[in-house]
């Protein structure tokens, strides 16, 4: 009755406390939005202050660290330069359909240099100008707000439903087939229904995020609950823990690594879905920005937007991964 092949098995070694490594980095079936962790990301030592004034004996380890740092930062940097060079060479011709990096820089200079146009900060929070000329960061913030709401709701509901079907065999048998079918529905296929229900772009985008992110959260949480080692359950039974303390002292801590696998996949899928949803619906948000720039034949703006989306998506994934490691360590 273990849930599905969609699921990773983080607690390979039950003896060791959940360590950073017990959080699986990717999930084959839903890996499209989970990056492969680069070894450099965890192995990068911090940069240090200038070692010039230190005696030679203290210099050696610093040099060592500097070398390690350079070794992990240089290859991607080099690759970036090569990539930009090839791109420039291939698309340098003014006739080219795809703008070259230098054209992106000159034509979208305003978009690149003024991302916060139309966005103001004060004590009450962030204010994004309604309509009109809003900078790219403003669109990103609009999208992030929708993701925060939709993903937040799906995290709460997903964990709750995951615990339910993980704990109750009846609920598992009743709901798992439904979830297995629904999770294969692509985010955009929900859009017409979502629009019909909510009538407005904002709420329907939030719903789309919710319905996209919830499945991996449910299924991984359920797998975590089902894979709680029998001995942990027996500890709970012998100690006659109340249901509430069983949930908080044993079930949730034991499930955390699985749960965060689901949450991490979910946040990546949210980000995929929001861009698609906003492209179709229009109005505001980074997806709309892309569609709008395409319609205005401002392909260079689209390229800038792609870079922003990639960076934000990467950050979201890392943030959730980091939270997962923190929580797993503390239990």
């Amino acid at each position: 009755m273990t849930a599905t092949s969609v699921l990773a098995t983080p607690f390979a070694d039950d003896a060791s406390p959940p360590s950073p490594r017990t959080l699986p980095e990717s999930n084959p079936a839903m890996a499209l939005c989970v990056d492969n962790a680069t070894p450099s990301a965890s192995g990068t030592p911090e940069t240090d202050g200038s070692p010039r004034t230190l005696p030679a004996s203290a210099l050696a380890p610093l040099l060592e660290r500097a070398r390690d740092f350079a070794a992990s930062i240089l290859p991607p940097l080099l690759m970036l330069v090569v990539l930009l060079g090839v791109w420039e060479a291939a698309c340098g011709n003014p006739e080219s359909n795809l703008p070259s990096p230098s054209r992106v820089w000159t034509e979208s200079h305003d978009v690149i240099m003024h991302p916060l146009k139309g966005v103001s900060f004060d004590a009450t929070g962030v204010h994004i100008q309604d309509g009109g000329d809003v900078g790219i960061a403003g669109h990103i913030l609009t999208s992030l707000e929708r993701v925060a709401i939709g993903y937040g709701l799906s995290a709460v509901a997903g964990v709750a439903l995951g615990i339910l079907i993980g704990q109750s065999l009846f609920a598992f048998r009743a709901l798992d087939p439904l979830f297995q079918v629904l999770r294969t529905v692509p985010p955009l296929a929900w859009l017409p229904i979502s629009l019909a229900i909510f009538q407005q772009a904002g709420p329907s985008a939030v719903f789309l995020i919710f319905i996209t992110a919830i499945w991996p959260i449910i299924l991984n949480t359920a797998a975590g609950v089902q894979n709680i080692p029998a001995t942990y359950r027996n500890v709970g039974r012998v100690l006659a823990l109340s249901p509430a303390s069983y949930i908080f002292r044993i079930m949730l801590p034991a499930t955390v690594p699985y749960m965060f696998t689901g949450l991490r996949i979910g946040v990546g899928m949210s980000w995929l879905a929001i861009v698609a949803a906003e492209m179709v619906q229009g109005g505001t948000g980074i997806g709309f920005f892309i569609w709008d720039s395409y319609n205005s034949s401002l392909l260079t703006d689209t390229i800038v937007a792609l870079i922003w989306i990639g960076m934000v998506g990467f950050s979201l994934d890392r943030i959730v991964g980091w939270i997962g490691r923190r929580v797993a360590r503390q239990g």
Partner: protein
Amino acid sequence: MKHQAYLSLEGIGVTFPTRKGPFTALQNVDLAIEKGQFVALIGHSGCGKSTLLNIVAGLVKPTRGVVLLDGGVIDKPGPDRAVIFQDHSLLPWLTVEENVRLAVDQTMKDRGKAEKRDWVLHNLELVHMAHAATKRPGELSGGMKQRVGIARAIAMQPRVLLMDEPFGALDALTRASLQDAVMEIQAKLNNTVVMITHDVDEAVLLADRVVMMTNGPAATIGEDMAVTLPRPRKRIEAAETADYNQARQAVLHFLHQRYSNPSDRAA
């Protein structure tokens, strides 16, 4: 009036439904254990000794028969029957102290925080693990983990202490030092203990009574032997006495002649 033992198993039988029809694991198990007695349960793998222990723990319900503890019927698990599991079963996200504290919180609900804390540390001292109170199980060796498992169980002040092959996963040297620790604690606390083992020396050295189980299916108690060696027992000296060797021979004879290992016979 018939004398009622402290812990008594009466007519215990267990039948599991399987695809090939019902399988009888245990049949007609009667066992009476006095307060403060240390009983070792020995038998080949698959003879149902773990099932028997789980029945006393309340984790498994017998198909037939009843277990009485101090006159009351056992029908569910409870902290008055602490279990020391073979795999120690410490929760890896809690520190050593928190693991023991979880058990103490359940058994000393009406006590103050300071008192509970002192009790946790006292029990960790009994197993010589107070120094590791703030460590997590993952940072400890197998033997140290099992010491903490013992501390957790005795901290619950159970009416019966159940040990399910507690040292089966440890190397011989660690096992010996843990056995010494158990004898030391037993001398102080005089618990009622049921220990499952498949180690003949362990059974004879630790127990007041060795209960030998026949092979399954439908396993039952084959022989019940008192070990009369004086306490405190020292492993080297005890091993040189005639009583020890006689007891050891009796168990070996039972296990290897009368009821030899079923998997060997099949081969």
